[in-house]
């Protein structure tokens, strides 16, 4: 009996959510093949499937990040140096000042659960958990997923079978990678 397609994910809620998303994809996919629906409807089904697929990719990468890094690591990554109690010693001109003050490192406020797909991917690549090649692949699905934000879109996007197979192919690569590398 197969209870999960993500049995390597130990966190029960995450595993169930992944299976739910995967199940939705399998339910929706035949509708894209059905002749009962016209092209815009099929494209719409495809779009929803791509969003679910990207959700799976994002969740698997979060799982990888969550297993390998603490909240402190994230805060450290997003930390920045700030000049506090700045005092102007000399004003050179309107665009140039010589200043003094306390230069302090301020820990970032980002939390793991607030990180988006782009941030997670970037973090994992910089920490050499994922390769640049995989990161580029993930970026492909992120860009397609983000086309759901139609406000700034310059064209009417339509989605087809090849877009779906691309998304599934990326999801499969990520799943295979996380399966082996998530402790």
């Amino acid at each position, binding site marked *: 009996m197969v209870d999960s397609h993500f049995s390597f994910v130990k966190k029960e809620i995450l595993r169930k959510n992944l*299976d739910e998303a*995967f199940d939705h994809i*399998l339910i929706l996919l035949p509708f894209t093949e059905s002749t009962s629906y016209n092209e815009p409807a099929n494209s719409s089904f495809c779009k929803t499937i791509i969003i679910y697929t990207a959700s799976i990719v994002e969740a698997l990468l979060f799982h990888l990040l969550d297993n390998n890094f603490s909240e402190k690591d994230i805060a450290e990554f997003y930390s920045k140096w700030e000049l506090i109690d700045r005092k102007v010693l000399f004003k050179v001109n309107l665009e140039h000042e010589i200043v003094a003050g306390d230069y302090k490192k301020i820990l970032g406020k980002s939390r793991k659960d607030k990180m988006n797909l782009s941030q997670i991917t970037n973090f994992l690549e910089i920490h050499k958990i994922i390769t640049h090649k995989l990161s580029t692949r993930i970026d492909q699905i992120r860009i397609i997923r983000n086309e759901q934000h139609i406000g700034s879109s310059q064209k009417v996007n339509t989605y087809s*079978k090849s877009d779906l*197979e691309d998304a599934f192919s990326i999801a*499969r690569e990520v799943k295979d990678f996380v399966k082996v590398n998530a402790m």
Partner: protein
Amino acid sequence: MKTTRTKNKLGHFVVKRYDTKISTIEAKYNIDLGVRGDMKLGNYLKEKGYPSLSKMLQQ
């Protein structure tokens, strides 16, 4: 939100499997997929051009 997913006797979710029959899906969602009912879901996906998804089902 309640889920409609099938559960086994232990109350665990049962995921759709590679060998789920197309006729089961057609009946559940009232849809005609235009292939033999006894075809397996995994083979259907592969045949329709979704080898990656079919592979994910197999794992």
